[in-house]
Every structure is written in structure tokens, then in C-alpha cells.
């Protein structure tokens, strides 16, 4: 699951890393909205390329390209399903190909925008910024924990599967009941290790007095600075520029 690497934060020191998550969220919201609005593949390509300067500045190229490469695998699915759907509905192969290309670029653009956000935002900052936009702390925390668990768990599932296969477990054999039974030696270790992980995290939280005080205060409070103003300005200007391509020039 290489695409998940694009969502795992590694510490970095670039300007983008130091920008407030809330300003980066503005970028994410505006540009994902554009992916909904645009239909033309070339315009969608422009939206996709909007994340390139950010990737260059924040030097996250290798991990970002890994997540893009990983998402290429899913594009085949999207293309085929879309192709069948459109040919079924309209009977036009040309339309189907064009809309398939659009759908694929839209998917990559979405992955790219979100992975840029998650690669440059530390989980602590993300939680803090979610709390500062008044999302309850419990939900913000659980969300961030889950975000961290997903790559860990899918890696662990893969490791357990490989281990059981090396012990001679044949997973793709037999009838339905047999196949489901084949998954038990994978599921049980996965569930147990996940529960153990949850218990460890809960113990760690409690040993740091989680939930002991009614009012939770923060040592660090995020504040918007000049850097954020500049980032938001560039984001909004390029958003308006792209939007005008459709609104003014009339490209679909």
C-alpha cells in the first residue's frame, strides 16, 4: 500500500512545514473544490501541477512521488469502471475515454493535494489546529490516532500474511468457506496486536493524565503570521486565476 506513504508525516524544516495548518487547509479546500468544478482534463492537470511548487519547496519529493506511484494502481480501476459506465449510458467511446482521463487526473490531483498537506503537517500541529477551529479535542485526537494507525496496520497485515504464507498457508484456494477460514490465522494476530497497541496508547495517555483536568490548555498555541498571509495570498490568487479560466475564457 505505497499510496499510504504519502500520508505519513516525517519531520522537516522547510517554510511549508512551518506554515499554520489552517492556512494549508485553505489551500486544500479551495483546490479540491476546483477538482469538483473542472471537467476539462487540461484544467485538471493545472490543478494537479499547483501542488508541484509546494512539493519542491518543502523537499518532500521522494515520498510524494511514492504516493502518486501507488495511486496509479487504482487509476486502472477508475478508468475501466468509468469507461463501462459511460459506454453503457451514452454509447460514445470518445466521451468515455475523455471522461476516464478526467476522472484519473482528478483522482491523482486529490491524492496529491492531500498528501502535500499531510506530509508537511505534524500530527500535533494538526490536532492543535483542529482544536483551535473548535472541533472537540476527543474527536481531533481520535482522528489523528486513526490516521497514524492506518499505514501501521496495513503494513502489519502484510507482514502477518507473509509470515503465514511462509508457514504454508495457501490463501487463494478452496471454496467460499475454506477461503474465509484461511483468513482466520491472519485475522487473529492482527486483531490481537491492534488491541494491544490500543491498550498501550491508552496507558500512555492515562499516564500523562489524559482527561484528568476539565479544562485542557495548550503549551503551544498556533498563530497566523506573515508567512501565512503570503501563503494564503498566493493560494487565493492562483485559485482565482484558475477559476477565471473557466468563468471568463469559458473552457469547460
Amino acid at each position, binding site marked *: 500500500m505505497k*499510496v499510504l506513504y504519502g500520508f505519513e508525516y516525517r519531520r522537516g524544516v522547510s517554510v511549508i512545514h512551518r506554515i499554520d495548518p489552517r492556512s494549508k487547509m485553505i489551500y486544500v479546500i479551495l483546490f479540491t473544490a476546483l477538482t469538483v468544478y473542472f471537467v476539462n482534463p487540461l484544467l485538471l492537470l493545472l490543478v494537479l501541477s499547483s501542488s508541484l511548487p509546494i512539493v519542491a519547496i518543502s523537499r518532500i519529493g521522494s515520498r510524494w512521488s511514492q504516493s502518486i506511484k501507488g495511486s496509479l494502481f487504482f487509476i486502472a480501476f477508475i478508468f475501466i469502471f468509468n469507461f463501462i459506465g459511460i459506454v453503457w449510458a451514452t454509447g460514445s467511446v470518445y466521451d468515455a475515454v475523455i471522461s476516464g482521463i478526467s476522472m484519473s487526473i482528478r483522482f491523482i490531483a486529490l491524492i496529491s493535494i492531500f498528501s502535500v498537506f499531510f506530509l508537511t503537517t505534524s500530527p500535533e500541529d494538526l490536532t492543535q489546529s483542529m482544536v483551535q477551529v473548535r472541533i472537540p479535542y476527543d474527536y481531533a485526537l*481520535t482522528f489523528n*490516532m486513526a490516521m497514524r494507525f*492506518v499505514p501501521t496496520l496495513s503494513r502489519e497485515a502484510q507482514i502477518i500474511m507473509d509470515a503465514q504464507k511462509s508457514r504454508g498457508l495457501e490463501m*487463494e484456494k478452496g471454496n467460499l*468457506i475454506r477461503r474465509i477460514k484461511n483468513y482466520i490465522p491472519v485475522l487473529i494476530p492482527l486483531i490481537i496486536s491492534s488491541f494491544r497497541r490500543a*491498550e498501550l496508547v491508552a496507558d500512555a495517555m*492515562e499516564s500523562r493524565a*489524559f*482527561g484528568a483536568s476539565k479544562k485542557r490548555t495548550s503549551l503551544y498555541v498556533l498563530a497566523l503570521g506573515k508567512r501565512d498571509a503570503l501563503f494564503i495570498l498566493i493560494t487565493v490568487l492562483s485559485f482565482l486565476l484558475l477559476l477565471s479560466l473557466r468563468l471568463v475564457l469559458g473552457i469547460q
Partner: protein
Amino acid sequence: MVNYDEYVNVANMAEAVRGFSRARNLALSAVFAAMTAAGGLISIPFFPVPLTLQTFFVYLSVLTLRRSAALSQIIYLVMGLVGLPVFARGMSGYAVLVGPTGGFLFGFLVGTFCSGFLLDRMKGRRYAGVLSLLLCAVIVFGLGWVWLAYWLNWDFVMALWLGVLPFLPGDAVKAVLALAVGKRIRLS
């Protein structure tokens, strides 16, 4: 004299003493959200539809988390919404949530909420687990069916054949599996 009560959340400590604390609940919800996501990525090739372990984890979350199971599903949906490829076949984003199969995803949320509530109410009674899983499955498939029918221009029969019937045998097995595993899990 310091008013101790202002600084210490007594209700929370009592909960912790009883053994099922808020921290534990949150950590387990996070793990179940992640497991539901990972379950969508593991698929067993089978005719006519590939089986995924997604609903297995949905059922298991009802049995272990009861009323907080819905929280894990909210988190799961939000993760998919922000672009993590956690929905079935590695999909993500708003398009899936409002798309033809979106009903099943919302069904996970509504289903876990209702059946978790039911399980809490029937705690300790016989067949509580079976009944709540049945309710969960009915809600998940019911919502998914109606939603899919809407996408097929209200063709309920077609939606039944495409989205409900092929999945039922697999889901029955997964529910039994979840019951067997759930019985073994005792949260300390």
C-alpha cells in the same frame, strides 16, 4: 482552601477506576477506524463479488465498542473524505460518499450507532449480539439498497441483484466470524 473539584474531573476518574476509560475508548475507536480501512484493502477474490473484510470489522466494532462504535465509523468516513484511499478498491473522496455505493458507507455509520445502542440496552441477555448484528446488517444493506436504487433510477429489483444479494452469503459468514471472535475478546 483549594476547590479540588475544579481541577480534577471526578466523573472521568471514576470511569477509569471501573476499567473502561475515555482514553481506552478513544484509542480503540481509532484502532477500529484503521482496521475498517485496512479491511477494505484486503480482499478475497471470489465470484461474483470479491469479499472484503470491511463489514467484518464493522460488526466486530459493534460487539466490542458498543455505543462508541459509531465514533470509529465517523472517523473512518472522515479519513476517506480527506483523501486517504480507505474505501473499498482503494477509492477515496467525496465522490464515493455521494456515489452509487455511498449508501453502504452511511449505513456503516447509522448501523453501528443503532445496533451499538441496542446492544447496550440488551446487555447480558441471550442473543443480544446476534440481534444487534442483524439490525446492523439490515440497516447497512437497507440504506445501501435504497441508495443504489436511486442511482439506477429507482430500479429496486436491479439494485437488489447488483448490490445486496451477491453480498449476503459472505456477510452472514463474516457476522458469524465476528460473533466467534467477539466472544473471545474481553476488554480489561
